[in-house]
């Protein structure tokens, strides 16, 4: 079973909101990714069947958006905004500090699969730079020490 019954019923609830089934595809991908951590080809096939589209149409969507992964991607998604307002206030230095702390480069996952560290474009927290997004939560007004502590607390 690629998609669990719980996820499946959550997808059905999303489908009910749209005049055409496919409107719920983005929501469904979020749900499936929450369950599996990424969108595997088997999951894409299962969704394609559910949405009555081709698997490749699922994958073209997966690869278009930043938030979906077409390969395993670590337990926690840590994204430091490095767009202009954040860079003006030390975001790049923060990334370098976290790279050293985790022993990976931005764009990589720690060996234990705990954290994927990455850059991200503007997250709408410009006044509280630098900042990072961990999964669905924003952490604003950071310095390197604070950020490292937050990362260390991740399971």
């Amino acid at each position: 079973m690629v998609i669990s019954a719980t996820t499946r019923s959550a997808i059905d609830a999303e489908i009910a909101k749209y005049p055409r089934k496919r409107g719920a595809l983005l929501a469904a991908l979020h749900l499936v990714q929450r369950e599996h951590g990424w969108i595997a080809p088997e999951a894409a096939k299962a969704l394609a069947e559910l949405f009555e589209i081709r698997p490749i149409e699922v994958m073209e969507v997966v690869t278009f958006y930043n938030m979906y992964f077409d390969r395993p991607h670590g337990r926690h998604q840590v994204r430091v905004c490095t767009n202009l307002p954040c860079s003006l206030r030390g975001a790049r230095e923060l990334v370098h500090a976290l790279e050293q702390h985790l022993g990976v480069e931005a764009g990589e996952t720690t060996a234990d699969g705990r954290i994927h560290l990455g850059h991200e474009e503007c997250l709408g927290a410009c006044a509280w730079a630098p900042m990072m997004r961990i999964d669905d939560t924003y952490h604003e007004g950071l310095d390197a020490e604070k950020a490292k502590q937050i990362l260390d607390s991740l399971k």
Partner: protein
Amino acid sequence: MPKITVDGAPYEVAEGRTILQALDDAGVLMNGVDIPHYCWHPKLSIDGSCRLCQVEVEGIPKLQIACNTPVQDGMVIHTQSERVEQARQGVMELLLVNHPLDCPICDQAGECKLQDYAFEYGVQHARTREPRRALKKRVDLGPTIVFDQERCILCRRCVRFCREVPGTGELSVFSRGDHSVIETFPGEPLDNDYSMNVADICPVGALTTKDFRFKIRVWFLEDVPGICTGCARGCNVHLGVANNRVYRYVPRRNDAVNETWICDEGRLSYARIGADDRIAGHERREADGRSLPASIDEAVTTAAERLRAVIDRKGAGAVGVLASPHATNEDLFVVRRFLEALGSSQSGFAVVTGRSDDLLIQPEKAANAEGCRALGFGPAAPLLTRARGGAISALLVLGHDVLATDGPELLETLRGLDVVLLADSHHSELEQVAQVVFATRVAAEKHGTLTNHAGRVQRVAPAVEPAFEAHAEGEIVWRLGRALGLPGFEAAWDPRAVSKALSEAVPAFAGIDLDSVPPGGVPKAGS
């Protein structure tokens, strides 16, 4: 009907068409009115992304893409203004920013729209100094196609083709921005009955067919118009010919027949022309069973002697002809005349049938079954029943489709006849039972017309010469008629005279002769 003006020339165009569509309808696109384009294709949905077809429309400040701008009455369009030329140059330069510029080792060279348009509309030297995008080379997309991601200009014609024509949708653009690449889904290759069309519509050397890759540089090829004979559709093709050899078929646009497409099986059927199993010259069988090569005169003389013997003994009604759906209308007309002159009504034809679809592929796997019917040939079965019953003693068999339709007992039936004459292009078991075997020409080797499944009469003409002695079925039968002294066969063989006689004698072909058939064919009367 809206009237528009393009570069000063007036056009009356259909309602609801875009500028490119309207010019394409008028037959002037890239044929008088040059609006270069990549993503637009007359038989695919409008994409509007390559931006090369921008033109100036009076009254609209920005340049407009001709592919997606609907025509309006009174529209005044400029396709060659300085602004348009600058925009084109801009697009061309940008398309080349990441292009590998590997023309010397690219098989598309010579028929590459990037090469052509860069020369015609582009800038003369590159201003990029950075490394170009490094992507996948020689990707095996499936059984027929090889893909070079670096050469791709992302016009998405192939993606739309797979979705809109065969409906299989194997291809898509993954990722975005300048990381965009064409991909297939893991484990699901590009594999459909029409897959090789993507190589035709790919404007660059990104998609090439495994079959044609590196066989020959295209500038050595002559494009000879012809017809695919793989099924009753009669798809229009260009035969790529060099050194008296056909290297490929590519579809030739005919909106009434095949639009711009051809099926893979038909496309690859060019190989039948130069195949090793061609019957390479006429043969006659000695009394001791040995087959010996024969000139046409020797073969005809032998055949006529055999027939004469049967006619003398049993009457002309004991002679039958099994016509071929691979023969031309003209060939078949000669057969009909032959039977009439002989005084026999014993005829029929067999055609192999197979898989079909609702796109192009027709169930009858021959180019001219409809021509057989139009010229009065009925099914083979009654003829063969009569042969089995002893009413027929001599049979002239054209082609070997009957082997497939009539099964193994056919050979037994034929063995029981006094005389079997075969005229065929490719080897088959029928040769074992024939006293004379005539080597015939295939459609790419002769003049004539073919009637497709819908009754459209289309022209074929010699693109190559067989490397051995071979004759059209019509000529063989004509020579037999002469040798037998049949009335009406006194003159020497003349395909044009036959064609003229056909158009005069058979109402369905009234007004249609070799010289009058237009390149796109013409429906026979009543079709």
